[in-house]
């Protein structure tokens, strides 16, 4: 009994780490650019796919992929910002949502066309194979690594944004970009880099996910809805909210899977509806 609860909670924590990584990127992008990045799931998939392609065609292993794939996908993000998103600035956020949604469909469709639908397996790196028997559950070493690394990445991102000068500029840009520009900060450049970074985070989560899930063109689309719900619950644009809610929702899902499994896939949306009723701006958000 206790064993089962702990097992499910641990799995929840692992899933929560993914939610946190993904919703963090979304929150950063929305916070500064006011763009609801619907391409996030596709960019997550691209990260996983680039890792797989690197291994398949170039012999680039997991550890390199962990840096190279996010960098490459981040670059495509920078291009997207420069070529498209920039033109939508000042318009209703709905335009950005539609644009990124369209991009997601195109990207997923292209990968589907090239690689089919069943996807490809990606091996767990040798150093992280195997696992620990915790008594109540067998914890694969790789999943422990996922929790550890996403925890670190989330902490570093939070620290940079909340505690450094660069982060102060970012936060200032979220509040009032015109004023920031008046102080001589290159705000358009900051936008580009921020979008690129948010996208790179998605791709990073993708590389982390590659050894766990099948690397397939639609791996992101099943995850993205939950991640959006996480961001809405946490408060659109709130960094802390995204991280805490991501992990929290993972745990709640895990607990629901223990109590009443069929409800596990909807519990996050029920929570979202409740939170919106009580705190329309989300748990950590502020109305603007």
């Amino acid at each position, binding site marked *: 009994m206790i*064993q*089962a609860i702990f*097992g*499910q909670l641990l*799995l929840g924590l*692992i*899933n929560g780490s993914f939610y946190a990584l993904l919703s963090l990127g979304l929150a950063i992008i929305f916070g500064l650019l006011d763009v609801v990045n619907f391409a996030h799931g596709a960019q997550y998939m691209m990260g996983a796919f680039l890792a797989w392609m690197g291994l398949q065609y170039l012999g680039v292993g997991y550890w390199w992929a962990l840096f190279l794939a996010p960098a490459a996908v981040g670059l495509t993000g920078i291009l997207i910002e420069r070529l498209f998103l920039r033109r939508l600035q000042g318009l209703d956020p709905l335009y950005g949502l539609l644009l990124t949604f369209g991009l997601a469909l195109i990207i997923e469709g292209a990968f*589907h066309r090239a690689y*089919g*639908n*069943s*996807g*490809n*397996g990606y091996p*767990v790196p040798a150093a992280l194979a195997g*696992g620990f028997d915790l008594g109540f*559950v*067998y914890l*694969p070493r*790789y*999943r422990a690594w996922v929790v550890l690394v996403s925890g670190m990445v989330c902490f570093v991102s939070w620290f940079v944004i909340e505690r450094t000068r660069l982060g102060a500029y970012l936060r200032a840009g979220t509040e009032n970009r015109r004023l920031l520009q008046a102080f001589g900060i290159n705000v358009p450049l900051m936008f580009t880099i921020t979008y690129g970074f948010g996208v790179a985070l998605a791709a990073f989560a993708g590389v982390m996910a590659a050894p*766990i*899930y*099948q690397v*397939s063109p*639609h*791996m992101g689309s*099943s*995850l993205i809805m939950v991640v959006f719900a996480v961001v809405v619950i946490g408060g659109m644009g709130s960094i802390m909210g995204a991280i805490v809610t991501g992990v929290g929702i993972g745990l709640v899902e*895990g607990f629901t*899977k223990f109590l009443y*499994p*069929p409800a*596990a*896939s909807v519990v996050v949306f029920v929570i979202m509806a409740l939170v919106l009723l009580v705190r329309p701006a989300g748990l950590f958000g502020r109305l603007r």
Partner: protein
Amino acid sequence: MHRWIASAVLALSLGGRALAADAAKGKVSDDVVKIGVLTDMTGYYSDLSGPGSLEAAKMAAEDFGGKVLGKPIEVVGADHQLKAEVASTVARKWVDEEHVDAIVDLVSSSTALAVMPVAAQKKRITLLSGPGTTAITGEKCTPYTVHYTYNNWALAHGTGGAVVRQGGDTWYFITADYVFGKSLEADTAAVVKAAGGKVLGDALHPSPGTTDFSSYLLQAQASGAKIIGLANAGQDTINSIKQANEFGITKKQNLAGLLVFISDVHSLGLATAKGMYLTTAFYWDRDDASRKWAKRFYDRTKRMPTMVQAGVASAVGHYLRAVQAAGTDDADAVMAKMREMPVNDFFAQDGRIGPDGLHRHAMYLVQVKAPDESKAPWDYYKIVKTIPAAEAFPPVDEQRCPCTPAYADATKCPYLGK
């Protein structure tokens, strides 16, 4: 999306419209024998069915010389997006406006069950290769349906029976939460219990849409069952197997994939899938005829055919031979010929279509090879046992199909007497 599909279908059918202008005359209605492949072209099951099924149907038409009874054979395809309402809308359009004579494949049981009555009411034939539920030739049967490739009964008896005989007598199911998965679980559970085994529990997962199976696997692990039966398909099965390996579950418990396609094994890799037993209707490396046909399919698609795709080609070939033999494309006459003539081709030897519409042919219990046993690409299976048709599929009496002549009763079969 609906509109897009509709216009695509419309575009595909323009050729047919021109022919249809001069009213039906002669023995072939509308002067064309038109075959519509309706399946999942882009979604979860598109690798095991999808464009490959369309290609397989085209190959069958080409093998027939592109003409039957002097009239052209036309093959069209459409995407049902795994949605029952999309499937029945396309089917209705095909049947009412576009002179489609036979609708083929229909992967996923819910789409098949939605299309069968639409086609049967207008006396059009459905040749099902992708779906598995036994209801197709059971209580939901029609006089115009052929369930061609496999059904859940065959999978349950093939794999379930073999596993229990080898000592795997306690089971826990991880089941896709829709018609197909539940029916597969029920059929397998019945086989397990009949053989003296026990079912300790099950976990239903949403499908499609589940990527993380670890919590279901953990429940299966906690149950202590010797065998974890995967009553799901495609991506769901792939992720279940992959994650079962990751969590070390396969060290103490064994997996039984109840519906595993060669496309799944291909993307899992032999290192992960090795040793698994599964039941299939077709394996390319079985004999000269199957190798020859599969090689042609491979040259066109760069993949070896799944049993669903091979079944589509064989079913279309059998249908065309029946049209030829009947001298007409009238559904009643063609169905009678299809039942009368045995299937002898690269897919089946002496396959017989029963009065219930079920195609009874040999099935194969296979085991996935270990990486060092595999000599060439797609060299994946060892055939452990050939299951003869009489053992592989349920007898007609057990089916309770109200449309079989033995049960014929106009009140219970809505399609007779019209």
